[in-house]
């Protein structure tokens, strides 16, 4: 009964991972058979300015976007974990952007971010003159200024924290009631309760979600960068590791080189999994696993 799943697990994950390992040391363009080049690809990667930029971009993106997503999801979970009129609707609304197909979501923001007729800048220009904002500043050039473009990608990704929110919501609802009743008896303020009760109790879940999100960020930056900013503004302001791999492999047909870059990505993932594993072990007793 396990057979079909095992076929999938081996054929679609384990085997490809092994193939990456092999391809990374070859030169392969799909037409000619792969030829062994040893460590050349990895050496070239280290010297490749585009690769270095995309690696930095990916790490910075994870460093900024992941905490923001986690913070928003936590805030929403704490705000919406108790019943009240409208809370059900708000929960659904918060998860809604996550259910929109990636490409449709990307196209939506491509329009929203348009510097001239996009709704965001139209709104920012309300009350201003000559295309300036009410404060007399130029509105952000979302798609042509490197910093603004990076901010745009991060803004897009913050809205899609639905999964994290659902998990945190469940985690918050699972916390024992009596701890909060005790805190109320102690005359604790809202901030105290958050800092001394809620946060420590939810820390394990938060830590796991942070690692998970950091790994996922290697992937979910792809469609926004591909569709909205096209890896630009020039030269490579929003070229992330995923886009670099895609371009190298499927546009420049350098599969061996792309596999070498993939190897770096897998190593990053492995590092994160090790961190996660340690976290799980540390908190094992905590959840009675």
């Amino acid at each position, binding site marked *: 009964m396990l057979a079909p799943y095992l076929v999938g697990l081996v054929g679609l994950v384990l085997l490809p991972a092994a193939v990456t390992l092999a*391809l990374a040391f070859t030169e392969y363009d799909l037409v000619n058979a792969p030829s062994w080049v040893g460590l050349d690809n990895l050496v070239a990667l280290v010297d490749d300015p585009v690769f270095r930029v995309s690696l930095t971009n990916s790490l910075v993106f994870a460093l900024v976007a992941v905490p923001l997503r986690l913070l928003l999801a936590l805030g929403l979970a704490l705000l919406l974990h108790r019943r009240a009129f409208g809370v059900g609707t708000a929960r659904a609304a918060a998860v809604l952007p996550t259910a929109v197909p990636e490409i449709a979501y990307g196209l939506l923001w491509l329009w929203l971010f348009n510097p001239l007729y996009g709704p965001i800048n139209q709104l920012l220009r309300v009350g201003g003159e000559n295309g300036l904002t009410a404060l007399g500043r130029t509105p952000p050039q979302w798609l042509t200024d490197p910093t603004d473009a990076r901010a745009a990608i991060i803004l897009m990704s913050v809205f899609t924290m639905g999964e994290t929110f659902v998990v945190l919501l469940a985690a918050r609802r699972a916390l024992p009631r009596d701890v909060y009743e005790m805190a109320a008896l102690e005359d604790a303020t809202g901030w105290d309760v958050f800092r001394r009760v809620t946060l420590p109790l939810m820390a394990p879940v938060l830590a796991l979600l942070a690692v998970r999100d950091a790994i996922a960020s290697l992937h979910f930056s792809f469609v926004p960068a591909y569709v909205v900013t096209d890896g630009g503004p020039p030269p490579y302001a929003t070229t992330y590791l995923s886009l670099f791999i895609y371009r190298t492999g499927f546009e420049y047909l350098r599969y061996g080189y792309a596999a070498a870059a993939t190897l770096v990505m897998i190593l990053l993932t492995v590092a994160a999994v090790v961190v996660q594993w340690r976290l799980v072990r540390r908190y094992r007793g905590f959840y009675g696993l």
Partner: protein
Amino acid sequence: MGGRASGPPPLPGAAGRVWRTLGAAFVVLVFVPPLLLLVSGSLTEPGLPPSPTPHLVPDPVSTAGYRQALEIGGLLRASLNSVLVAVVAVPLSVLVAALAGFALARLAPRTTATVVAASLVALMVPATALLVPRFAIFRALGLTDTLVPLIAPALLGTSPLYVLVYYLAFRALPRDLYDACLVEDLSPMRIWWRVALPLVRPVTAALTALTFVLTWSNFLDPLIYVYDRDLFTLPLALRSLSVLDPTNFPVFLAGAVLATAPALLVFVLAQRRFLHHDDPTGRDRP
């Protein structure tokens, strides 16, 4: 016992409820507008000079964008392909996940632990990290430029997470039940189909919905495996529509609405199952 606490965080009574409702209203106000704008943008008349001020309701309201999207973009054909992939992949994926989850709940602990660990690892690997090698494998099998690579993830249950969810659900069924079935001399297959599966129907409903949303929205796989326009799925056709004329936003937004609607509809129908479980039984979701 001290005096009454002044505003402890589980706000007491009516005041707390009002604040929570206000908060909820704010959340709705932040998250819904982008989707409203998607609809309003798609109803704008294509080709008009963009208005300098923001409008929530376009003037004039026009469905020309939808007509053009269907004609130029070949979205009808693409929708058909998307439906075809979903019709094959979604039931297959749910079956694979349910079977595997059931097997994991019944097998020896050692085997189960190994497979669960492998699933967790598979869950962590970012999809982009597998692009190149998967492509090389499908290419070697001569399966590129067919719809097969788009259906293949069903063998993984679309996401190993869904297998694990089924595993937890089946494991939570009382042991006596399985023992009773063994006394009746039922085969594992029959126990799965006749006894266990009907008991986890809510799980099946939620996972079917999520699998559909993921399959329907899949953009990366068609992007690398399919080049023949006649095999384009909806997300891919949408992409080529936007590349065709990136300035004609009503047309590609109309296409985006068409691609979003089924996913959102299924999601809204299913979301009650994982967002509104106010009973304690819903607490142990992973």
